[in-house]
């Protein structure tokens, strides 16, 4: 499961996780989605970009 908050700054990034994934599946560009959702800092962006879901 994705951590609730960004490990570095504490922003609740998990709230954006489902939206990020569904928009990514629709073929949108990762950068465009993150910019649009207002995740400006690279600490928060890496939380979504690099997350690997191991719990199926």
């Amino acid at each position, binding site marked *: *499961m*994705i951590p*609730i*908050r*960004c490990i570095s*700054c*504490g*922003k*609740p990034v*998990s*709230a*954006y*996780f*489902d*939206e990020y994934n569904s928009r990514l599946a629709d073929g949108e560009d990762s950068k465009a989605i993150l910019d649009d959702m207002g995740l400006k*800092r690279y600490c928060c962006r890496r939380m979504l970009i690099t997350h690997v879901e191991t*719990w199926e």
Partner: protein
Amino acid sequence: MEIEVKSKDENEIVFIVRDAEVPFINAIRRIAMMEVPKIAIEDVNIVQNDSAMFNEVLAHRLGLTPLISNLDGIEGMEMANECDCEEYCPKCSVSFTLSKTGPGIIYSKDLVSTDSTIKPVYDTIPLLKLKEDQNIELEVVAKIGLGKDHAKWIPTTVCAYKQYPKITFNEDAEVNYELADVCPRNILKSDKRSKKLKVQNIEDCSMCKACVRADENDYINIGFEEKNFIFRIETDGSLPPEEVLSKACDVLSDKADKFITFSKN
């Protein structure tokens, strides 16, 4: 001291403070993070947890879930350690229940609050996953606390200031137009007509000094204005940034009041 608001939205405020001192600005910053009360889940009573997630991991995730704790919501509520009850009571706590059967992902919106004003800020935070026929049943108690006791009670994500950047040019030195391309934040713009480098959006300057390092003939100089600050407060959504700021000022003035009463006696 003068304050000018640069930008403001639901979760973030940026403002400029002019003619202030570092210790004062820093006191506000530290109090905004560590001593502004907000509400967060503290106790979790798990009745049944069939999921693959350990109870303590789940409790930790619940604790970090931000809850709405604006002034309307927590007005009149007691700090948990100052309340005269045994463990918890409606005066100092809000309880939630969560009861679901799989399959599916359990979200923060599935938490049912006993208080209509206090609920999770975001509905879409995934808490755990359940498979077919698995159950989750728990009760949680949210209490008011301070950031210095646990990170879940820190209302801010970003709470920081920097001194106002100051960029000066040495008119005697040769103009180096290439510096405009060196700046990672595009602060500098080469203006060949007036034979100068122009500064734009100076507040974006991070004072990285990449331009100074690339500059061989000491044309550019990066400094800062000692008494002017750019202050940024971003919250996790639990309370608006202006409320964090005004509460931080209240706490600071209460502290000063203690000195006043002390020195009168």
